[in-house]
């Protein structure tokens, strides 16, 4: 995190990650919240229901539902009449929303949803990885990944700003690692109401359902029209590339905190080895880099904040001088043996002059703890790739061979 001047400790309080996010949602003044509780998202929606019960969020309706499918469907109706809408979910809950996710983005509804990333069943696992959100990659939702509590909170306000921009009008998932971030206590600055009001003005929808001015949402688009809807969604995603950067810069100007726009770089300037990753693993990687830098290893990190839209140009620029790139993914495309970020980074380099070797590591599945020593091993293997080329292009990390 870059701050204007010193970190303002006097403004910070030690709170749980879920509280920091619930509080951020509160000061964004949503009109409708609908969510179904599911571990490890539960504390966020508990916090929000408490705020509403205590009258701390004015002009806001909390709709109780019987499933995640209904939660997001309720928001479709609410967003159509011009409400600022919020939900939160994870894992199986997000997968149950799958069909509605396409409807939200297709109808260009700027709904913001926190995805508290968790592995998917079966086998049942409540712990963290990114398979849930990555599996919703092509639903037309912007996906942003947070590194720590402060970023998860700040990103929530940025998400509404990006989503509601008239040149975007696309829904946003704010992804934060389940338990690792949702249940950790650490010092954060809770977003100030006044500043947030200034940063995020009242939502003024372009089109709403209004009997006085009849209009349809999500109607039939036959083969004469459907292509253009998809084309315009893609254009909106492309517009979002700049708006994500703008939202981060404007946030820095007003709040004095910056975590990168589409991406962020750490010690990449002279780095031979560049690791690429998303989410809370970034903190552990930074500490590992500091440790290895003391031993003279030229290693750096490219943190990807925006997975969708995919920041191909920013990534290409950031890794242009690297001698090897190692991508860490908390997900797998079964049958391809690759994580999504790895596949896409390789893909965006293919038609370029840059022939840097790229290797992939699938890591932290179902909450497998990620230790600094594991990151050190990856960096040491990357050094071998630099010297003698790729032996294994993509692989699982920390597999317990003895129990297979």
């Amino acid at each position, binding site marked *: 995190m870059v701050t204007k001047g010193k970190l303002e*400790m006097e403004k910070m309080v*030690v709170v749980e990650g879920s509280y920091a996010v619930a509080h951020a949602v509160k000061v964004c003044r949503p009109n409708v919240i609908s969510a179904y509780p599911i571990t490890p998202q539960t504390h966020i929606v508990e916090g929000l229901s408490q705020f509403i019960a205590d009258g701390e969020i004015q002009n806001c309706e909390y709709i109780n539902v019987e499933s995640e499918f209904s939660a997001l469907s309720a928001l479709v109706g609410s967003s159509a009449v011009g409400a600022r809408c919020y939900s939160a979910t994870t894992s199986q809950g997000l997968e149950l929303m799958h069909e509605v996710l396409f409807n939200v983005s297709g109808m260009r509804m700027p709904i913001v949803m926190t995805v508290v990333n968790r592995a998917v069943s079966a086998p049942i696992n409540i712990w963290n990885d990114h398979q849930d959100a990555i599996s919703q990659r092509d639903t037309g939702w912007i996906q942003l990944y947070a590194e720590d509590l402060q970023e998860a909170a700040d990103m929530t306000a940025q998400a509404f700003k990006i989503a509601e921009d008239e040149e975007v009008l696309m829904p946003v998932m704010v992804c934060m690692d389940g*338990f*690792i971030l949702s249940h*950790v*206590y*650490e010092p954060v600055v809770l977003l100030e109401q006044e500043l947030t009001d200034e940063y995020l003005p009242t939502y003024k929808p372009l089109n709403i359902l209004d009997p006085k001015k009849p209009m349809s949402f999500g109607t039939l688009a036959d083969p004469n029209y459907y292509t253009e809807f998809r084309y315009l969604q893609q254009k909106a995603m492309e517009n979002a590339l700049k708006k994500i950067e703008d939202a981060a810069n404007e946030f820095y100007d007003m709040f004095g905190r910056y975590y990168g726009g589409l991406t962020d770089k750490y010690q990449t300037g002279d780095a031979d080895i560049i690791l690429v990753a998303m989410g809370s693993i970034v903190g552990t990687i930074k500490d590992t880099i500091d440790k290895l830098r003391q031993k003279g290893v030229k290693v750096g990190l490219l943190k990807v904040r925006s997975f969708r839209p995919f920041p191909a140009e920013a990534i290409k620029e950031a890794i242009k001088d690297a001698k090897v790139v190692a991508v860490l993914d908390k997900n797998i495309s079964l049958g391809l043996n690759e994580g999504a970020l790895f596949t896409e980074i390789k893909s965006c380099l293919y038609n370029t002059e840059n022939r840097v070797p790229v290797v992939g590591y699938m890591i932290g599945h179902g909450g497998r703890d990620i230790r600094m020593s594991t990151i050190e091993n990856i960096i040491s293997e990357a050094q071998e790739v630099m010297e003698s080329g790729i032996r294994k292009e993509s692989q699982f990390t920390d597999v317990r061979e003895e129990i297979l």
Partner: protein
Amino acid sequence: MKEIRIHGRGGQGSVTAAELLAVAAFADGKFSQAFPAFGVERRGAPVQAFTRMDDAPIRLRSQIYEPDYVIVQDPTLIEVVDVASGLKEDGMIIINSEFDPSAFKLNTKAKVVTVNATKIALEIIGRPIVNTVLLGAFAGATGNIEPESIKEAVKKRFPGKVGERNAEAIQQAYDMMKEAKV
């Protein structure tokens, strides 16, 4: 950076203790982080919680494998969990027990300290909940945290009489450790 691992059983408030420690460390002007070893929590099952404190913001997110300090809320855990695992040689393990440290065969070169937290808790709080008492002992034995900060954090979390009694118990455990010159 100082890393603390708390061993307890589900229902003993290990996670709460880790959080209170983080709040107190921050009040002392340090950056802090607290989190549980996330499990499917069950009453009575062995649980772990972690706290880190440092002068700089904390970025590391792994569990704690080489703690500077270990707190054990229930000595019967020692038979089932390797509580001293990875404990630094110059570190310390604080066990809630009526017995002398020599009663415990632990695989560590670190200092072993016992405090009869259950007795203090029963006498002052009226319930055998030892998490806050052990934080008082931690403050007294390690000097890594101000007792006032722990007491304030506890009183804020448990307002009224409960908080007051806990604060009293914290002070007693702190004084005992100071007097014993641990």
